[in-house]
């Protein structure tokens, strides 16, 4: 049972390293999907939102982590 729990935790952790980042990615895909459904091909807006959003996510969340680290350091 403990092994199964470890495996399941590992599986979840594989995809949800940071819960807020996972939510942001899912929201981004939902917005891009909605744009693709609402517009005619070649879906330039959906393509731009998906690409730009996906490029922004790692930058925003790395900076957010750095800010949290800095705040934690100040509090120590």
């Amino acid at each position, binding site marked *: 049972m403990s092994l199964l729990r470890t495996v399941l935790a590992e599986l979840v952790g*594989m995809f949800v390293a940071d819960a807020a980042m996972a939510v942001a*990615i899912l929201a981004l895909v939902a917005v891009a999907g909605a744009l693709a*459904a609402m517009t005619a091909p070649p879906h330039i807006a959906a393509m731009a939102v998906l690409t730009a959003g*996906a490029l922004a996510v790692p*930058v925003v969340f*790395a900076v957010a*982590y*750095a800010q949290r680290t*800095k705040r934690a*350091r100040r509090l120590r």
Partner: protein
Amino acid sequence: MIEWSTATPAIGSAFLASLVEVVEAFTIILAVATLRGWRPALAGTFAALAVLGALVLTLGPLMGRVPLHVLQLVIGVLLLLFGMGWLRKAALRAAGLIPLHDEVAIFARESAALSAEGHTAAGADPSATGARSDAAARSTASQDWIAGIAAFKAVLLEGLEVVFIVIAVGAGRGLLLPASLGALGACAAVLAVGAAVRKPLARVPENTLKFGVGVMLCAFGVFWTGEGIGLEWPGGDLVLFLLAGLFLAAGLLAAGLARQVASGAPAEVAR
């Protein structure tokens, strides 16, 4: 007919990602083998490989029944979740905010944990002389079992990531076989080097590899997600190279900005 513009990144990503995961699993297997011998280490390893093989054989045919757009969307989103996690962590490691993966330290930690568990297993020392040899045999078997389970767990957990990456980069374009060959190539490379040096492969530039793989997984993730929601990428598969270049720039920017924001902050344990 294989499209090399998609196959090359797929094989490369599967090879590099598997290299990272196999190096991590090898460290644990080596710790088990050093402390308890190769028998429990190999037993645990092969048992885990059998479970992973069964998983692939079960999932493989099921994927053929899923409509391509749905498969691309699901795999694309999972790749984005997985790849961005790797890219963010690699950027934070490059920025010095979380410590680098240290195979030597992991080897030492795993060895100490196995020794401690071995002593616990051997703790029930019988006072009766006649029972002593039986108890010693049971204790050895118990320690071997614990060591085998450690190897099993390591190979299973790291192997799950390899299986996911192979499926994710290979399934969308019928490239499961080339991606699997990439992963097997990585296993062979690590085992060959590991068998030669017989110590943790600490000199593998793991974070650089993770950075590169994170970049490729994100590029595949955006590509498959886009195809899944009905986008037609200009340039077709070749856009993967452009996406990879953009994610590389984004990862470097993330590392640079994170370093700047937290300049002077000490490293803390990775989560």
